[in-house]
């Protein structure tokens, strides 16, 4: 026998889930972790990560952070590698549309919360927006120092020489700093932080950003944050300064320059094109009449 709610409210069409899936106590716990993270920029706050109805690696950390901060009036945008229409983005957007009944959008400027996997949108963020990053491995020192006790001590005592050992190895092996994503940054001159696997192209966008930036790692059970208008400096050497990726040609669909491009393989004879990774940005530009060299073959109706 199942127990049914016979109260008058049950007459209305009610979701079987609590608002935004998580129970209120869990959301309070996550909010406390977020507050601590905001108070100590770049510091990894442990939290009691919950089992979510999706596998680890699909954004369980980001989803929990979003669930803790979302309200009924929020407008949610979810992107996966810059795209709004990939499986991960579509399913997380559908998840919150179903469990929280919030409005969703693909427009960066219309969203109040943007959950992202591995990109920061090209359109500048505003003070009214919060960006939530999905983080696989929050510890920037992990690959050089496997012991958690030791990395915590190193953060505590600000011993960050090891990060430069990794950059040194890059230069020794490749002649330049070959780390292209998850490029370590120093937040507010104190904590070294892994910005999640965003391309280093996006690192400068984190510096002095008006939007609140939250990071959630579900499997590793860590939350960290960059408050608005914080300094975020990418680490480098004096004689090998930090540089972002540069692209030779503009986007093949919308002719945008100064944006992050994805390579698209066109055939098995070496044909390829580079298009905007941020699909929303690309669509907006095309609507505004910008046309790239390959606009006809991009799959977009002409």
């Amino acid at each position: 026998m199942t127990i049914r709610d016979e109260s008058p409210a049950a007459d209305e069409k009610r979701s079987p889930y609590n608002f935004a899936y998580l129970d209120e106590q869990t959301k309070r716990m996550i909010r406390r972790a977020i507050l601590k993270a905001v108070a100590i920029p770049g510091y990894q706050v442990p939290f009691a990560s919950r089992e979510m109805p999706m596998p680890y690696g699909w954004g369980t950390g980001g989803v929990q952070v979003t669930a803790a901060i979302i309200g009924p009036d929020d407008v949610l945008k979810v992107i996966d590698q810059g795209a709004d229409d990939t499986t991960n983005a579509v399913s997380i957007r559908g998840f919150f549309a179903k469990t929280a009944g919030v409005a969703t959008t693909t427009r960066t400027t219309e969203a109040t919360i943007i959950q992202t996997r591995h990109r920061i949108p090209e359109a500048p963020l505003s003070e009214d927006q919060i960006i939530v990053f999905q983080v696989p491995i929050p510890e920037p020192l992990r690959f050089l120092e496997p012991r958690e006790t030791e990395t915590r001590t190193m953060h505590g005592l600000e011993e960050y020489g090891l990060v430069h050992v990794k950059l040194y190895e890059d230069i020794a092996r490749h002649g330049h700093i070959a780390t292209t994503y998850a490029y370590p940054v120093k937040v507010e001159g104190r904590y070294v932080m892994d910005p999640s696997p965003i391309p280093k192209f996006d690192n400068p966008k984190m510096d002095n950003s008006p939007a609140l930036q939250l990071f959630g790692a579900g499997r590793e059970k860590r939350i960290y944050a960059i408050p608005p208008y914080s300094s975020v400096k990418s680490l480098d050497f004096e004689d090998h300064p930090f540089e972002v990726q540069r692209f030779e040609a503009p986007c093949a669909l919308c002719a945008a320059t100064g944006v992050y491009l994805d390579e698209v393989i066109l055939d098995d004879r070496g044909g390829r094109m580079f298009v905007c990774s941020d699909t929303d940005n690309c669509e907006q530009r095309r609507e505004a009449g910008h046309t790239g060299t390959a606009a006809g073959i991009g799959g977009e109706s002409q």
Partner: protein
Amino acid sequence: MSAPLLTAEGLTRLYGTRIGCAAVDLQIWPGEVLAIVGESGSGKTTLLNCLSARLQPSAGRILYAMRDGVTRELFAMSEAERRFLMRTDWGFVHQNPADGLRMSVSAGANVGERLMAVGERHYGRIRQTAEGWLERVEIDIDRIDDDPRSFSGGMRQRLQIARNLVTAPRLVFMDEPTGGLDVSVQARLLDLLRGLVADLGMAAVIVTHDLAVARLLSDRMMVMKSGEVIEEGLTDRVLDDPREPYTQLLVSSILQV
């Protein structure tokens, strides 16, 4: 030369009711090499670990004369200060090089790590220093970008020494630095160590069960048995004229070829 670099008073380390080392008093003077000898289980390594602040002693205290001339007690310092001291003014050479090296990063980065840890942020200068040190420890410069896994045991040990000496420490702790190496490689390493210690004028504490190593490298030596220091003196005096029966036994048990 007026004050000892490191002074230990009543240093004791207990493992439960078992004794690691008991009531050891010693002084290390700038530029001198002290050997601690004894059989396995005599407390040599426990004593070394206590002296180098890697192990908290159960009783006793250790005083160290810092570079600025102030003498401070090691375990009264903050952990941050102690760790800073350990990676700048001290070196620690492990018996097994894999314990002291980062095996997955290149030789150059291994040597450069301490420089980067104290704030060096110029790739060119770090690399130049690393090259200089590889040369000093007789490792070919074209191996600078190879990782230590591809090195022989002797090369690894020399790399570990270079990695420790790059910040010009005033005191180096060595735990059986020649253990596990074959005899000819041992001889070369000893030659190298003797040269480096003399050139750099640093003090060293060497733990060894090999009396030949102690004879070659050290100025002064201490003999340990069951956690206690039973005899100490100038190396040549102890080895040529041992007083304690145990030391006599130890000296007489060296194989003569």
